[in-house]
């Protein structure tokens, strides 16, 4: 198993960062997102919004992957999020649904209000392969390396959305 974690501080208020996070697809940096659907959504008795989304991502295979390791380079991803606007807290977990024997990737995002109207995001990711054949470590390392390489791109995509929201807020009512 491999782990990754990182934090990031935004100058924007919590409500804007959380809004941008839920609206992050589509963006010009996310051509790999083929579809995104809400499959369940409810306001809990405590006032939080709980959402489950089903996302289809286009993937790519490493060159050393044995033929037939993965049938098609697409993956279904489940995203479960909970937003608490009263406590200014948002949590989001994503995990792949298929190819789980090759590798499970689980990502946890936590967005909460920090001091001076800023917003703190922490990201944790886990990579777990059960593939065997002497490839388990290699697959996990590949997953981690790929995740790190894509992080900048997904951040840029996120900033596009964040900017659009900032601009729309600046317009006079």
């Amino acid at each position: 198993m491999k782990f990754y974690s990182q934090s990031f501080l935004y100058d924007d208020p919590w409500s804007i960062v959380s809004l941008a996070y839920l609206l992050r697809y589509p963006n010009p940096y996310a051509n790999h997102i083929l579809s995104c659907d809400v499959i369940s959504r409810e306001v809990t008795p405590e006032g939080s919004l709980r959402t489950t989304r089903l996302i289809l991502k286009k993937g790519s295979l490493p060159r050393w992957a044995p033929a037939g390791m993965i049938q098609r380079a697409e993956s279904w991803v489940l995203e479960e999020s909970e937003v608490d606007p009263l406590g200014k807290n948002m949590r989001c977990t994503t995990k792949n649904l298929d190819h789980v024997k090759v590798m499970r990737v689980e990502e946890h995002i936590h967005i909460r209000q920090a001091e001076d109207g800023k917003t703190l995001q922490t990201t944790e990711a886990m990579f777990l392969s059960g593939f065997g054949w002497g490839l388990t470590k290699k697959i996990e390392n590949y997953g981690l390396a790929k995740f790190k390489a894509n992080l900048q791109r997904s951040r840029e995509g996120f900033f596009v959305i964040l900017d659009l929201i900032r601009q729309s807020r600046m317009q006079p009512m």
Partner: protein
Amino acid sequence: MSQSLSEECTPLKRKYDACFNAWFEGYLEPAVSASVTPEQRTKFSQEKAAEFEKACGKIWQEYRECVQKAVKDKGLESLLSQARQSHPLKEAPPASHDPPRS
């Protein structure tokens, strides 16, 4: 706005997303503060749920039915129920004496 997993549901999804997004912006900035009582939370929950139902309830139902059918047609139901049962981070790690490295 992005596609639905079924082409048929995409127009419904777009209508629903637009409705939800408008509601969600207001939801994220409640008039009450963080130090709310459980009673205020319950009241907030009921108000927001009613507000959503009034504005987007109908389109949500249509969109949800469309997606549920598409999920069934594509044979994704079992994949979804398996995923909801497994929580790899909460389970014990596989037999190994190495501490996890980050």
